[in-house]
């Protein structure tokens, strides 16, 4: 038996009123036909993944958001190219006393008052495209691109860490139940009751001062991995809890019974029978998690517990820009807009993904609101 054929949620229930009202199916005869074809069980229309993909492809808004996100990622990956060939400077190189020759004009990068040069775009051959960042006179555009690499790295890698931890914990807890479940769930209750920002700040500040030495792992206090690990760990319960609930429901299904009857061991049942059925939930959570991680990174860096200077991330850039908010608001607006655009594109795409994979939106609203997706709320 293919585990996919048991997939709850991913395959739309024929004539599902929830999906119809949500507008995913309404007025779309082809899609309705697809859904009904699936229920016919002749397999002509492909599996639930094919349906989800077709539904996603139809959602131009979500695809556009994915495009924007990929564009941002590519731009940030190309940061060294811009730095070497256009701006001719590094992200941490200061230009405090330099002058910019532009046509006949000579401009100081940093005026004696401490006010830095504003955006030049291409008038200085790409140097100081977005101006300089306050009294150190570093190239804002170069910092923005390199900062984006840190922010995206943290957002994505932390989401991977959260996903792995949450899936393993949820599988152990949901499959074995009993004592294993009690220990894991109580542990998660503790992190759950711990204000997310407070826990990550506390860890961030302690580790930012002392670095981390855990067995073979040695992390310098300035390492990007420290905020990444912290963010990955603190969000784990928020993903593990809903997954655990789903596993509890799946455990009672016939196909698990069948697997047990065939003599499948726990590992096989967990990873080959249960896990594939969780994929749609995991994918949606993973995507939305990236958005939230980036917001948390910004807050941590802003409060001095995330990425450590002189490295830049969008959070540290806002933090530095905020000091000159009234003289040069643009230094706050630029990195803030970068975060907003990235997070927004991830959220829009994640939303589309959720509609495509799970039209009944059960990912978000479990029976008890306590397990609803708190991931959609960033730190305040």
């Amino acid at each position, binding site marked *: 038996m293919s585990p996919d054929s048991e997939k709850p949620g991913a395959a739309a229930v024929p004539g599902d009123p929830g999906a119809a009202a949500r507008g995913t199916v309404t007025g779309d005869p082809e899609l309705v036909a697809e859904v009904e074809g699936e229920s016919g069980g002749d397999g002509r229309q492909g599996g639930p993944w094919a349906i989800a993909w077709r539904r996603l492809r139809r959602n131009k808004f979500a695809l556009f958001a994915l495009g924007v996100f990929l564009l941002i990622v590519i731009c940030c990956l190309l940061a060294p190219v811009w730095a070497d060939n256009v701006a001719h400077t590094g992200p941490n190189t200061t230009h405090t006393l330099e002058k910019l020759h532009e046509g006949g004009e000579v401009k100081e990068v940093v005026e004696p008052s401490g006010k830095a040069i504003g955006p030049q775009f291409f008038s200085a051959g790409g140097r100081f495209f977005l101006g300089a960042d306050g009294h150190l006179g570093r190239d804002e555009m170069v910092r923005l691109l390199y900062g984006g690499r840190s922010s995206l790295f943290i957002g994505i890698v932390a989401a991977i860490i959260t996903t792995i931890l949450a899936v393993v914990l949820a599988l152990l807890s949901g499959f074995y139940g009993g004592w294993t479940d009690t220990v894991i769930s109580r542990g998660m209750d503790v992190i759950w009751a711990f*204000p997310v*920002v*407070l826990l990550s700040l506390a860890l961030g500040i302690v580790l930012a001062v002392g670095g981390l030495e855990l067995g073979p792992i040695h992390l310098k206090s300035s390492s990007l991995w420290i905020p990444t690990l912290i963010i990955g760990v603190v969000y784990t319960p928020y993903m593990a809890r809903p997954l655990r609930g789903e596993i509890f429901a799946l455990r009672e299904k016939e196909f698990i019974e069948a697997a047990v009857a065939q003599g499948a061991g726990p590992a096989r049942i967990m990873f080959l029978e249960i896990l594939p059925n969780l994929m749609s939930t995991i994918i949606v959570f993973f995507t939305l998690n990236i958005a939230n991680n980036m917001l948390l990174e910004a807050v941590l860096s802003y409060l001095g517990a995330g990425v450590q200077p002189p490295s830049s991330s969008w959070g540290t850039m806002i933090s530095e820009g905020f000091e000159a908010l009234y003289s040069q608001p643009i230094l706050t607006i630029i990195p803030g807009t970068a975060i907003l655009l990235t997070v*927004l594109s*991830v959220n829009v795409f994640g939303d589309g993904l959720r509609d495509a994979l799970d039209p009944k*939106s059960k990912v978000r*609203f479990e029976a008890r609101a306590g397990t609803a997706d708190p991931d959609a709320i960033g730190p*305040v």
Partner: protein
Amino acid sequence: MLRFLVRRILGAIAVLFAISVLVFLIFNIVPATNPAARIAGKNATPQLIKNVEHEWGFDKSLPAQYWTQMKLIFTGEVQSYNAHINVDKRIAEGIPATASLCIGAAIIWLSFGILFGYLSAVRSGGWLDRGLTVLALIGVSMPVFWLASILLYYFTFKIELFPASGYEPLSNPAKWASHLILPWISLAVLFAGFYSRVLRSSMLDVMNEDYVRTARAKGLSQRRVMSKHVLRNSLIPVITLFGLDFGVLIGGGAIVTESLFNIEGVGLFTAEALKQQDFPSIMAVTLFGAFFIVLFNIFVDIAYAYLDPRIRLGTTAA
């Protein structure tokens, strides 16, 4: 009900205990700097540091230190390392500011969240719905300190409409509100966006329930069906979410907002304590915050059972 309460309260105490141990370990196993050296001041002799260590009990065993710390917190005698102020008193002084911020923001985000969510659901699929969805998504994606910075720049600097920062006591309501209006907005936007999404989704689910069809079949007007039958039942997830979010905020969770607008509440104190690694203060604010989270979790379970009679207490308490 009583059994449920007793069990939840015991559970809450266990969670709070675990959290206090966790914070204690974070700050003692990963020793950042020697607190005694900091208390003793810049030009301290080794002897002075020894004395301070002895006086503050840093030379005792970890469990003993933990015990002393907890005793001090619960007897209200705990002192911060840095300014030597009474931490419990400082938290108590911060409560009015934090409560003003959170309650005001909560009123704004509930009103807008429910209004937008309702309109979105009623006009589902239409232009209004799409517009509101985009607005809501922008709201959830906005870093709160960025929105706050922009509000600060335009409304206190460009056009000097509101005072820049600080908190004024409620005794002067006009001044109180004018200082809080920008923080309220910054804090509320995020939640308003999220709540409108939650309500929309929940209403769309409820609209397909049989009893809604029955109500329509009886000939009730659209407006009446929507407000009396659909909205009422759709509000359950919103209310439960609200309980959880509000619990976090009232316990000092609005760290960023309070720091940005310099509102001297529990959140700002938390930020300061963390920056200075002032362990006793961090311990106290963490317990304070966690207490409210746990408390509101219990409230939410009770409210949930009350609002939805199909749920029986005791079985939902997972």
